[in-house]
């Protein structure tokens, strides 16, 4: 598709089509967008997704509820605990299982730490998009590594945790959990400070990101964007606050909201969310009591009664929803993963058109897409 540009010349002027991706350093995986550019100005964006489509929803219909957990990790591979949480909460809601308190607190701690690690990943990737040669990336990975070490000690795996179970947790956390979390939080505070000092106030970064890729609150809602993209536009919608799950109604935290809705606001919202996550984990640690991590009476074979449920949790990228339809039996009849990046990507065109090519990269980066989640 080429758009003829209005011109005074007697020859025809065409936009050049630039194909970005699926192999391009700025597309965060296998995302592809075709840009129609007039000089340096983007006139049209055609996003293409699906390169990582693995038929996850179809596969989940063939897996029983225990087997499905492992697959959820692989859809959202930067916020695995959140993905698992949605899945197991859907099963629990259908089966009407009461989860013990301790298990819920631990789930909360792990999910918030996961949010930290995911946002660290964002700062790194976005820093690289904006051109900080590797420094932001290595900073981010250096601090994310501490969180991943903790997760590995608890769950045994660095990425694909498969730790939550319908009803609770797979096994108890390590004995030195409290010290380790405290240490990791200290490290994270230092990390947030470093990343913040490196990038947030840098004039070059501000010049690049402020007033770029603006999406208004109405448009953001209309496109169905979620998470920091929506909050960056000034809509204080956070599932943790508005529809509390786990024990989010018992901890105190603030929801950061941007004022302009540009790339810079999305960055600041995420940085602030990291601080809030540290706060939440601290409160959770104070309330964590010894106790069981699984209900006393759990059926050996997980079978749900017929029914349907739409579970939503606030993953780092926004609302991660699981729509599970059961017709009885030990596997879902239909499992729909409502992915945050999928909806956020829809708004990409609205944000990018009229900006520079270099800005299109930044805008895509500010959406913080995970292709595993987008394509499922």
């Amino acid at each position, binding site marked *: 598709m080429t758009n003829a540009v209005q011109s005074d010349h007697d020859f025809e002027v065409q936009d050049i089509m630039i194909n970005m991706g699926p192999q391009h350093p700025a597309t965060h995986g296998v995302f592809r967008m075709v840009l129609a550019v007039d000089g340096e100005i983007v006139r049209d964006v055609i996003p293409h997704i699906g390169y990582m489509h693995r038929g996850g929803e*179809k596969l989940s219909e063939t897996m029983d509820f225990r087997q499905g957990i492992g697959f959820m990790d692989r859809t959202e591979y930067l916020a695995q605990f959140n993905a698992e949480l949605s899945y197991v909460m859907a099963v629990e809601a259908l089966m009407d299982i009461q989860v013990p308190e301790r298990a819920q607190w631990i789930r909360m701690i792990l999910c918030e730490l996961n949010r930290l690690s995911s946002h660290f990943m964002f700062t790194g990737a976005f820093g690289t998009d904006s051109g900080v040669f590797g420094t932001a990336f290595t900073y981010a990975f250096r601090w994310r590594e501490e969180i991943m070490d903790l997760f590995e000690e608890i769950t045994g795996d660095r990425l694909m945790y498969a730790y939550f179970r319908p009803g609770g947790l797979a096994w108890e956390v390590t004995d030195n959990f409290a010290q380790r979390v405290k240490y990791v939080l200290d490290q994270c505070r230092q990390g947030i400070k470093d990343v913040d000092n490196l990038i947030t106030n840098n004039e070059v970064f501000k010049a690049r990101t402020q007033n770029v890729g603006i999406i208004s609150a109405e448009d953001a809602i209309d496109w169905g*964007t979620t998470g920091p993209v929506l909050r960056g536009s000034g809509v204080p*919608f956070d599932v943790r606050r508005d529809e509390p799950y786990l024990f989010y109604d018992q901890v105190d935290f603030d929801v950061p909201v941007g004022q302009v809705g540009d790339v810079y606001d999305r960055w600041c919202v995420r940085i602030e969310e990291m601080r809030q996550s540290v706060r939440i984990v601290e409160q959770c640690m104070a309330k964590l009591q010894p106790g069981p991590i699984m209900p006393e009476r759990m059926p050996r074979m997980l079978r749900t009664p017929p029914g349907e449920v739409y579970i*939503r949790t606030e993953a780092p990228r926004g609302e991660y929803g699981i729509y599970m339809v059961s017709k009885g039996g030990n596997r879902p009849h*239909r499992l729909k993963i409502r992915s945050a990046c999928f909806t956020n990507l829809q708004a990409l065109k609205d944000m990018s058109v009229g900006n520079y090519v270099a800005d299109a990269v930044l805008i895509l980066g500010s959406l913080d897409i995970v292709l595993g989640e987008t394509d499922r």
Partner: protein
Amino acid sequence: MTNEDSAPARSLDGTIWPQVDRALSGITASAERAVLDVIVSIPRDEVVRGLKALKADEALAFDYLRCLTCVDNEEEGIDVVYHLYSTKHHHNLTVKAHLAPDDLFVDTATTVWRGANWYEREAAEMFGVRFRGHPDPRTLLMPEDMTDTFPLRKDHPLAEIEVLQGEGIAWGVEE
């Protein structure tokens, strides 16, 4: 709260159903209560009108489309499921439109929320549901030429598993 009791005999008391019923005056709608949300079933021909009414209603203001998907009920046809949310009043609603198996089309919801665009493209290629009036009816996740098979339908088979192990042990595929 997700983990609250959800008794099997769920009544519609205390839900937003009365308001929804009022907003949907003139549209045939029936309601049931699922584990978390109220499910409103609207006939196929009226569903977009109903969705518009739900969005426009002051007391409901369903301005946010959470999710749009289909459920294949095999011989009973396909349900199109809309999950709505109101960022103003913070309440949820599930809307269902039933499609007969030989008559798979429904009006597009992109006229109500632009965000329905990709969801409908995905549902169209995965279930073969045609969304009438969709602005961009290309495939989304599937290859451009894959328009005759619908992977998420129940009759679509899984791929064979390549077996690398065993000394000539035959290994079937379960599904």
